[in-house]
């Protein structure tokens, strides 16, 4: 089975984010980057499919040179090959999808796995763009995946229940939390990962469909108020529940 997993390089969830001087990007100084957490489910699913069916797992990332670190993490988890489509500039979801699509056309994977969203811009767009560009079926936000021969059964959590969809390989699946429990990199895999190559590719330049015109840090509102059980404070509590929270 020829498996392609797309990974994105995102700021660590614990990092404090500041807006850069240009007002349209983040200040990356001191920011630690990680593999997008939803992509870890995609990687794990790719590895499990390989363990069951044989084949190779390739990880692809569109991003700067520094994204090799995230590709190394994927290799350490057990991915066989890695491709970096190298670009230093800011790009939108279309650019990412277009470049993944170009590589996919050469590679012809049986399945493309992605995270349901990147936690940096949360656009949710790449899986659908990709499906459109490659004219492949796609199921998004999948929490259970079963593949028998060419038949693909994907489960999605919907309000109050499950939705079960059926499609065929080749297809595109975006992963939801719960799809699996991603493995920790293992010692022998880390050692092997060191000798696995990361192939670099030049990007196909396309006009962005979306551009950022401004970024702002939300103002920090005081959310807590400390009140006691004196009469004055009780009045104050009632007042703020009524006027501010509007729940009584």
């Amino acid at each position, binding site marked *: 089975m020829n498996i392609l997993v797309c990974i994105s390089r995102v700021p660590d969830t614990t990092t404090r984010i500041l807006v850069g001087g240009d007002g349209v990007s983040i200040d990356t100084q001191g920011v630690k980057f990680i593999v997008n957490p939803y992509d870890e489910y995609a990687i794990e699913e790719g590895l499990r499919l390989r363990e069951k069916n044989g084949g190779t797992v390739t990880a692809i990332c569109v991003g700067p040179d520094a994204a090799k670190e995230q590709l190394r*993490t994927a290799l350490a988890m057990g991915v066989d090959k890695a491709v970096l489509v190298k670009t230093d500039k800011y790009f939108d979801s279309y650019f990412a999808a277009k470049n993944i699509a170009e590589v996919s056309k050469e590679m012809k994977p049986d399945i493309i796995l992605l995270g349901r969203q990147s936690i940096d811009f949360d656009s949710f767009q790449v899986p659908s763009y990709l499906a459109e560009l490659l004219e492949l079926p796609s199921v998004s936000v999948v929490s259970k995946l079963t593949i028998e021969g060419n038949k693909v059964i994907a489960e999605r959590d919907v309000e109050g229940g499950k939705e079960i969809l059926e499609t065929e390989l080749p297809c595109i699946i975006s992963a939801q939390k719960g799809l699996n429990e991603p493995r*920790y990199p*293992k010692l022998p895999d*880390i*050692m092997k990962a060191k000798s696995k190559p990361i192939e670099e590719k030049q990007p196909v330049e396309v006009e962005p469909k979306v551009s950022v015109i401004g970024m702002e840090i939300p103002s920090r509102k005081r959310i807590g108020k400390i009140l006691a059980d004196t009469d004055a404070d009780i009045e104050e509590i009632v007042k703020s529940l009524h006027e501010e929270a509007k729940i009584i």
Partner: protein
Amino acid sequence: MIVKTDIDTIEAYLTDASNLKGKSNKLIIPENKDELKTVIKELFNQNQNFVISAAGTGLTGGRVPKDDTIISIEKLNNILEINPEKKFVRVEPGVTLNQLEEAISLYNLFLPPNPTEKNSSLGGNVVNNSSGSRSFKYGSIRNYVEALEIILSNGETFNLNRGNNFADGNKLSLITDEKSQYNIEFDEITPPNTKHSGGYYLKYNMDAIDLFIGSEGTLGVISEIKLSVAIIPEKVLGLLVFFDDEYNLLEFTEKIREKSLITNKVNIDTNSDIAARLIEFFDEKSLDLIRNKYPQIPAESKGAIWIEQEYSENFENEILEKWFEIISKYSLLADSTWVATNEKEHNNFREFRHQIPLTVNEIISRNGMRKIGTDTAVPSYNFREYYFYVKEKLTELQIDYVVFGHIGDSHLHANIFPKNEAETKKALDFYEMIMLKAINLGGTVSAEHGIGKIKKNYLKMMIGDKGITSMKKIKNILDPKNLLGKGNLFD
């Protein structure tokens, strides 16, 4: 200055993490050092005994009042100076480990010993001589205390810098900022050959500052601390090694402990060998406790060891190979060894470690019982005997338990969770047996949590009447009215 006498406010200050509960009818919260001094002087003049309360994470009832006035140093929580060139920080005593770590990490600095409870205060850490997971390489916080300001119970102040004031044999001479002189002649207490937090540090030719580190709030109030800090190493490797066999786990631990004691002395930039800065243990029951949160734990695991090593990127390949080689020798599960090389992965391992005490506490509160937990350590040459003794007694006990902890320092926490009073009683008997065994094997009844109010008997068993008398003599000189931290360490 804030003064509280209403029961509801005071209530929160009557216990610590040990669940021991005390009594008090007055809480004073000074807002700066001058206020702290003023309060202490007033209490001295009124002959009113008082206890210092910090973050309340102590596990031995140290801050629990016995009809003392409570002085909470919570508002003395400013970081006064961070000096990246000379690698030190100056802080007020109420600064927490969390607060310090966040502030100094911006300068690529860290405090090496790493006690687990990040909400604890540095003042608390100093007077308890706290240690943590990295103490295997770096020792306890004592090694990092460069200077202390200490307010005595009469309100006078010592300013002590490490290296400036040594005892002449067993004679210490200390002068306060107010020019009062204290002459102390002490009887040496030989500490066990382990990590240790139990009673005053009294050694011939000692540095005066060491007397106050580990004094558990009985000799003076720490009002300012200067600590040395270290540069965060270029690279850290984390390994979680699973074992299919308990004996092999122990043998592996002994091998890497022995080796690391030597290699940890080599400069990281030139070291290509294994060198653990941290060696932590989880027994099978600890793993069972968290298996449903971590389904990735190999089913055959009979225990696990968590290791961290600081290294230089140049030697990454060699070091990884050496670890794999030695792990493969002792574990059939070597291929399943988890690895962490970046901050996120290290945090995963820390979280894994943290889940064990957390889950224990959940069970304890569900059972509505008290946790019985040991904090004993023994010299490494006696570790096996101690380990199998603990395991044997735990098996006989037939009450749920886990064993985990700082195996690099031959220091384990056995946590028992009784379900009823009868089981609690049995667990307490076990606790006493383990204490006695540790003493017999030349170990300590308190490796890091201190003695406080709940382990006094065991301290006495360990250092004898002579040791207690020796400590009381010093207490008498520095706090003659016996106002401060009454009932800690001794009666």
